[in-house]
């Protein structure tokens, strides 16, 4: 009797299945014993354990090591060889005449990074929310080729930040695409990476371009969750368009907006790779971000000052932790 294709397929699947089933049996045996020992309800923790181990190894332990580094000094790598300095690194970091003027600080680079990051984040968040809101509203309309546009706007999110930065650098540099266009039109070439304002502008711009799709998606999902009949009711109520947007769309979209704002804030504070690749933090320190400061203090200056970098990391960590709490609170309110 000839075997039909379907039995063949079943055999092929069986071939794969057999070792898998054996493996499961093998795991099953000790697991059963464990379950009998600790009870069914506590088994959940057993299943959570493997990931918890990895999390500890790569996140939790480094976190603690980082804190330990931040209270020690010297250039040695191993904590045991590092002298304890207490809050010395923090005191050094925070030794400022005025916190508003980086020049009055002993560690002026750090504070310049803080100021730059704050400025960058502020512009970025405001512009990001505006642009992604407008984009989401437009993409939510019944326009032709909507799916295509949605894909186009989301596409940059899939790119590596380094690729994004390199692409834009190629466009913006002295002999780049943009300047070629400007000179072709008879204009003066602009040295975007030499002018501090231009450099900051493009850093914000590229970052928005790269991440906007993600936030647009969140807002689009929120817009689509608003029932269409509310707008029909509003139309019957003779509601002007702007008022429908202001009184219906915005309030119902607000939970998503909060998520977008907080996520963009967190992302802004963490910014490093794309700006670093695009401008290298320059000109001078005009686009130096906190994370870049930390990276350079620890790994690329002649003196590798792990302690100071670790202290700065802790400060940054506290800021991010606060923002994350805000995000959790916001998303919890959204679910409620």
């Amino acid at each position: 009797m000839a075997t039909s294709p379907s039995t063949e397929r079943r055999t092929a699947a069986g071939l794969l299945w057999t070792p898998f089933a054996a493996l499961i049996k093998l795991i099953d045996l000790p697991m059963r014993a464990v379950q009998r020992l600790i009870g069914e309800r506590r088994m959940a923790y057993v299943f959570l354990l493997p990931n918890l181990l990895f999390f500890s190894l790569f996140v939790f332990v480094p976190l603690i090591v980082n804190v330990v580094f931040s209270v020690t000094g010297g250039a040695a790598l191993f904590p045991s060889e590092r002298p304890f300095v207490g809050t010395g690194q923090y005191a050094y970091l925070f030794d400022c005449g005025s916190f508003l003027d980086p020049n009055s600080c002993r560690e002026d680079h750090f504070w310049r990074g803080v100021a730059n990051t704050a400025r960058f984040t502020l512009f970025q968040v405001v512009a990001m929310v505006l642009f992604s809101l407008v984009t989401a509203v437009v993409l939510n309309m019944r326009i032709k080729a909507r799916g295509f546009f949605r894909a186009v706007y989301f596409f940059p999110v899939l790119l590596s930040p380094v690729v994004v930065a390199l692409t834009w650098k190629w466009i913006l540099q002295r002999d780049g695409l943009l300047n070629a266009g400007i000179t072709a039109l008879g204009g003066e070439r602009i040295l975007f990476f030499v002018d501090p304002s231009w450099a900051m502008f493009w850093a914000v711009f590229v970052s928005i371009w790269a991440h906007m799709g993600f936030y647009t998606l969140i807002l689009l999902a929120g817009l689509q969750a608003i029932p269409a009949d509310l707008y029909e009711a509003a139309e019957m109520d003779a509601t002007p368009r702007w008022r429908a947007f202001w009184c219906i769309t915005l309030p119902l979209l607000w939970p998503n907006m909060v998520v977008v704002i907080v996520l963009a804030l967190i992302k802004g504070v963490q910014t490093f790779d794309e700006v670093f690749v695009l401008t290298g933090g320059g000109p001078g320190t005009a686009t130096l971000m906190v994370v870049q400061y930390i990276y350079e203090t620890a790994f690329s200056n002649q003196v590798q000052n792990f302690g100071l970098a670790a202290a700065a990391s802790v400060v940054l960590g506290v800021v991010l932790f606060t923002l994350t709490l805000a995000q959790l609170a916001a998303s919890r309110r959204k679910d409620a």
Partner: protein
Amino acid sequence: MAQLTLSGITKSFGTTTVIHGVDLKVEDGEFVVFVGPSGCGKSTLLRIIAGLEEVTSGMIAIDGEDVSRLPASERGLAMVFQSYALYPHMSVYKNMAFALENMGLKTPDIDQRVRRAATMLRLTDYLDRKPKALSGGQRQRVAIGRAIVRDPKIFLFDEPLSNLDAELRVATRKELAGLHAELGGTMIYVTHDQVEAMTLADRIVVLQGGRIEQIGTPLDLYNAPDNLFVAGFIGSPRMNLLPARISGPGTVAVGEDGQVVETGIVAPLKPGATVTLGIRPEHIALAKNGEAGLTMTIDLVERLGGESYLYGSAPGLPQITVRLDGQTSHGRGDSVTIRLPIAHQHVFNEAGKAMGRQ
């Protein structure tokens, strides 16, 4: 309050036409109900009147003025949606006040109107609540309140009661009838429930497949359905519709065994022509001893105390429903003869049109 005229309304979505030329005149202050099976185009027609859908061709006129091309917001109508479509983030008060704010009314004016509607709809205690914290019936009343405060030219209702449980539906139905009596506005109401249609309407418009089957008062439709569809649709339980053949002057033969039943009609049908004999369950009586009639076997008896339903069968006929007043001693398996009074018979020709009586 206003009068509405629809002339030659058609509507197509792409290549499918769902409304095929509807003509209708709704008088000032009239309560008109659109009724018909699911998918017949009731909602579409209502949304066309509202301005939420554009007509493909035809004209909508309110008080004689062509509004076919006006957007919904400029037609001055109010609509109560099946889903209620309350603004979820606004209080009951704000939901009702929203449209008034759009009209640019002054705050004291708005307040007065909202409170009057709230009193009328027993919502005064809930004005500060969000829709989420209301029961289905309360939400429903807010939706109605939102329409009332605006004092619209015409009220449009799209199956407003279908999300309520049976008991509440009956109660709200009565309230709506009361509201219409009190407000006296022109109302157009969509439902697929013929009992709602019968109880609420001044006039009923029966729709099927995007066409009007018949327009008339509830009793017109009940007493003189124009065609088989209306006959089967209006009345509960359904009218018995028995396939028959003209067998002679004033008689038809029904069923496989050709039982002869007297009818009033003849002309212009020739003997042998296929017809449908219709009679409502409540008009059938049991024949007394020796009286002629149609013989059937009882399959099921439902005893409700005040009334009884017999469900019977005869060879080649669909199930026959008989409604009897009071209680009956007949049971399953009994053979009974039923009388079909000529005065209550409806005869439909092969095309399903009602034939005149003689």
